[in-house]
């Protein structure tokens, strides 16, 4: 029995350690490569530690690398992404919260159909949207701008944010809303005073989800932005595709890490809420 247990344990650890290595190895390669010189990369081993650490590649990726014809690094793209991601996340999360609140607590005739149709939005491949969306943006006069990109992300994010909030709010007992109604509170007062204060876990989940989706998006960034509004994913792509005499793996790696840092940061800071929020949604009765 005890022996059995021991072997089971060893097996579990072996699997876990394998998984850890599997996921961490690429990160290790990225980080070590980004602080090596081109010379060392060319002569050395992919897995070897850097002989002397240099941040030249990082500086170049951030400030001077060529992305197509211009050579200003990723910094402009990075700030484009920042300017785009926060409004897009905040607006789509807010709309999801309000939709979820209505679809769970203020049901109206046909609200189930509205919800079902919204959920249909989860299954539409975004490629299908490209043409009609481009047309719509043209009509609205926001094509190729940051507001235009925000618009696309908000529209495409509403289905999932609504689903998150609606499912969370279904778990809040209706009697709580009824009590507040008898206390004289209306739609918004109940939302802000009773429902929203209970929503921290799901707000965090939605925030992280949307932030990751929007920050990492490449398709919409490529199609619906131009020149000075392109996000970091497009910038990174341009940088990696700009042909130079020698392939600068260290600069590419540094650029890739720069592009990934904000989502990593968000997970580290808010990750515990993410797990807690998912759990809360599951057990709330």
């Amino acid at each position: 029995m005890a022996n059995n247990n021991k072997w089971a344990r060893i097996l579990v650890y072996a699997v876990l350690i394998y998984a850890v290595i599997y996921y961490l190895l690429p990160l290790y390669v990225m980080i070590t490569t980004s602080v090596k010189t081109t010379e060392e990369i060319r002569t050395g081993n992919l897995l070897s530690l850097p002989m002397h650490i240099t941040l030249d590649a990082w500086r170049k990726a951030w400030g001077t690398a060529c992305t197509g014809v211009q050579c200003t690094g990723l910094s402009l793209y990075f700030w484009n992404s920042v300017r785009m991601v926060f409004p897009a996340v905040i607006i789509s999360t807010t709309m999801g919260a309000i939709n979820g609140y209505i679809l769970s607590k203020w049901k109206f005739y046909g609200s189930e159909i509205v919800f079902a149709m919204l959920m249909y939005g989860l299954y539409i491949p975004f490629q299908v949207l490209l043409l009609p969306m481009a047309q719509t943006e043209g009509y609205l006069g926001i094509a190729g701008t940051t507001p235009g990109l925000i618009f696309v992300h908000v529209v495409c994010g509403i289905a999932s944010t609504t689903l998150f909030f609606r499912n969370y709010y279904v778990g809040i007992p209706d009697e709580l809303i009824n009590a507040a109604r008898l206390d004289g509170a209306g739609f918004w007062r109940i939302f802000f005073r009773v429902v929203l204060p209970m929503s921290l876990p799901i707000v965090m989940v939605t925030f992280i989800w949307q932030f990751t989706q929007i920050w990492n998006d490449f398709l919409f960034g490529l199609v619906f932005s131009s020149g000075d509004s392109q996000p970091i994913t497009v910038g990174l792509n341009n940088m990696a595709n700009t042909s130079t005499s020698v392939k600068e793996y260290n600069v590419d790696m540094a650029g890739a890490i720069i592009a990934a840092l904000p989502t990593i940061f968000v997970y580290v800071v808010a990750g515990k809420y993410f797990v807690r929020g998912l759990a809360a949604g599951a057990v709330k009765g």
Partner: protein
Amino acid sequence: MAMPALPAARYPNSELEKKMGALAIKNVTKSFGDTHILKGIDIEIDDGQFLILVGPSGCGKSTLMNIIAGLEGPTTGEVHIGGRVVNNISPKDRDIAMVFQSYALYPTMNVRQNIAFGLETRKVPKKEQDEVIQRVAKMLQMDHLLDRKPGQLSGGQRQRVAMGRALARDPILFLFDEPLSNLDAKLRVEMRTEIKQLHQRLKTTMVYVTHDQIEAMTLGDRIAVMKDGIIQQFGSPQEIYERPSNLFVASFIGSPSMNFIDCHLAEQNGQIGVSLQTDSDARFLPLPNGQRLAGRVGQEVILGVRPEQLDVAHSDDNVAAISIKVNLTEPTGPDTMIFTKINGKEVVARVHPRDAKGPGETMRLALDMSKVVLFDPKTELRLE
């Protein structure tokens, strides 16, 4: 000389003359899809009356409360409060305070904020809010809980807070959905008295759901006994206790429950009555003014006898008496319950402990035949 006709406005119609909190429920039904929960409820009480709703779990009491509060609309029928139809008036404008069965406390607010929320919404000045909170906290013995969140309270404490939240307001109608069900026995009795005093002081109309016999009997001016979405009987506590309209009401109200003895209605020496048989005796007991039942002689009836209507027979009593064999005794303190068999049915008598005999012994019990009730075994209705 004929009186000159006065403008109509001087003579408001009787509907409008009814005071603030009078409640009338007229033929209210409620269905969720194909499930019919309430099947035609009619209840009418005056302003200031205390209405008790009792009935088994799932019979629709909470649903009816929600309809009165306006939280759910009736499928058909009307709700009148203070003489006007309120079907289309939103809950917040009905001026009702309610204690929910599940307490429904705001989890992110502490007790103080929970109580204050309704006052804030109704724009009660801050100073007045504080006074109200103090008063309510003192009444419900929860001064020390004011800064806690509902999650940090026990079930009974939460229930008190829910009560406090309702009592902080001064509405025209209180709705209490089993407000004391989770309190310990002592606090429950205290709170019951407190509610009764409160009602006498405020004279606000109250509707109160309970499973507790004593709460129902002591608090109510009117009791509505419900089953399967139908009002079985609606009347004063005494009426319901003494003249239950059917077997269900008779067995539901009263603890220990009424004894039901199957017997034949018979006629002997020109008197109509029932024959009872025990392990040690057999008697014909005539019914006072039994003549009204002349048409039923020879038929089966169910004799309903409350335990306290079976008392020890003293020799000079001018009442029907029968000797019985004691099977079991249950002393409760003030009374002792005697278990025996009459006509093959288990029967409980409530006697003074001093008079109680032990198991196996025989004793003579007197039946107060003027108070017993008879039911038709088929329709289960009480025979008038």
